[in-house]
């Protein structure tokens, strides 16, 4: 069994996990079930990143999407709605819109991949993307990086301002 075969096995396992959990997310009538299925979607995507050698991205995917966004979603749903099962509000019209949006995103992805990465060789085998990423973020892309962090800081301060107490 060569490395390619093992990688292919892992790839198809992750792909199956991704497709099944995505289907549950989309078609489930219970929002909570959809949310918990989203966990496996996000983990499968993290697995793809790890398989492609983007280890930092894989771990960040788990931290940001599972630890942050998914937990916020669960908080939002469980704290604001009646306990047992929550029915979704999907109608026929929503499905058409969703299909249209999905097609648009797919087309966009195809265009991006063809425009920017067409014919480029896969990057050479590397130990970790961590050092290269750090050098790029604090070198070539310093301004966008700092700009993004300032924007996030402004959002944090704004959130703190919005929820402050008015009684004193």
């Amino acid at each position, binding site marked *: *069994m*060569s*490395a390619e*075969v*093992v990688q292919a096995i892992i790839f198809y396992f992750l792909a199956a996990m991704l497709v099944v959990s995505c289907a549950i997310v989309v078609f489930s009538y219970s929002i*909570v079930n959809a949310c*918990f299925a989203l*966990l496996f979607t996000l983990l499968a995507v993290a697995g793809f990143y790890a398989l492609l050698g983007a*280890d*930092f991205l894989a*771990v*960040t995917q*788990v*931290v940001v999407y*599972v*630890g*942050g966004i*998914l*937990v916020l979603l*669960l*908080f939002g749903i*469980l*704290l604001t709605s009646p*306990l*047992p099962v929550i029915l979704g509000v999907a109608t026929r019209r929503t499905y058409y819109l969703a299909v249209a949006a999905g097609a648009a995103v797919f087309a966009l992805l195809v265009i991006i991949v063809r425009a920017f990465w067409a014919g480029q060789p896969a990057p050479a085998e590397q*130990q*970790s993307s*961590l*050092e290269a990423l750090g050098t790029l973020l604090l070198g070539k892309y310093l301004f966008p990086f700092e700009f993004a962090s300032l924007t996030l800081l402004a959002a944090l301060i704004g959130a703190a301002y919005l929820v402050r107490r008015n009684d004193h």
Partner: protein
Amino acid sequence: MPGTLTDIINFVIQTALALVGLDYARVPEMLRIGAAMLIACAAMLGYVAVVALFFGWAERRVAGRMQARQGPNIVGPFGLLQLIADAVKILVKEDIIPQTAHRFLFRLAPILVFMGAFAPFVVLPFSETLVVSNLSLGVYYALSFAALEVVGVIMAGWASNNKWSLYGGMRLAAQMMSYEIPMGLAVLTVAVLSGHLNLRTIVLDQQGHWIFSWNIFRGFPWAFLGMFAFYLAGLAGSKRTPFDLPEAESEIVAGYHTEYSGMRFVIFYLSEYATMYVVSALTAVLFLGGWHAPIPRVLAWGGEVHWEAGPVLSALIGMANMIGKSFFLMFVMLWFRWTYPRVRVDQIVYLCMKVLVPLGIICLIGASVWALVL
């Protein structure tokens, strides 16, 4: 990297197969790596179980001693076999799933929680050679899997279909999420000081003048304060007293695992001890010199300064140091539990947002200045 745990396992397999006349080199490489990884992970799983078993016993003995009573002392010497007797009892217990529970998620939740608690063990170094996976992302990876635990706990709370469970799950998730911030800041302090995220390299950096080259003294005021921030945040993240609001028995019965019984309950219990061990071991690795001995070799061996232990002996000494430090820090957790009362929920938020986060930020800025100046 030469001499990792995988290499050692491969060497053992190779020798064993050579004895029966088989050539291990003919087995495909991916299979060899996979087999070694699997064996290493199984070994870690066994280690987690032993740690949980030992501390399940120690917790009761320590509690007994601290409250001037006996604790378990009947089954085996010093009651050491008590936990094995308990395990047998639990194995034959009826597995109860409440009728109104969500059966699938109810079963899945403990597995997720344990996965999140176990994943960091893969990168914990026990000595220079004994580390399952020498990831360059080390500590970042170790902290990231707390996310799985958070989701698992919410899942357990929701799937039980019980108010106490849901409140417990929500409390724990909120607590773990907020305490990840000071924890991350404290880790960044060390990352800035040593310039690595790889746990093995972080420990290798702390070699030299016995305790004075450990990170707590190397980056003196900052890493020293950072250690307390990290340890307290870890304590809150592993829901130990004084931060055990998620299972506050006087308010919400047993929190998110109210409805669990038998083996499923034990998996939560196991995860709690696994998380405690990870927090202790990470504190030891990041701040307390990992596998380096606290006493200089001159004193330790009474011989010459340049004495070098062989690979096997130095691995064993490193392991003893590492496990000793981790167990001591776990003992401190037990000590806390039987000493302090539970804090209120507003005090938890106060401690995180107004004490530990500012402290972490000050430590990080200080350590950055230190790293630039020194």
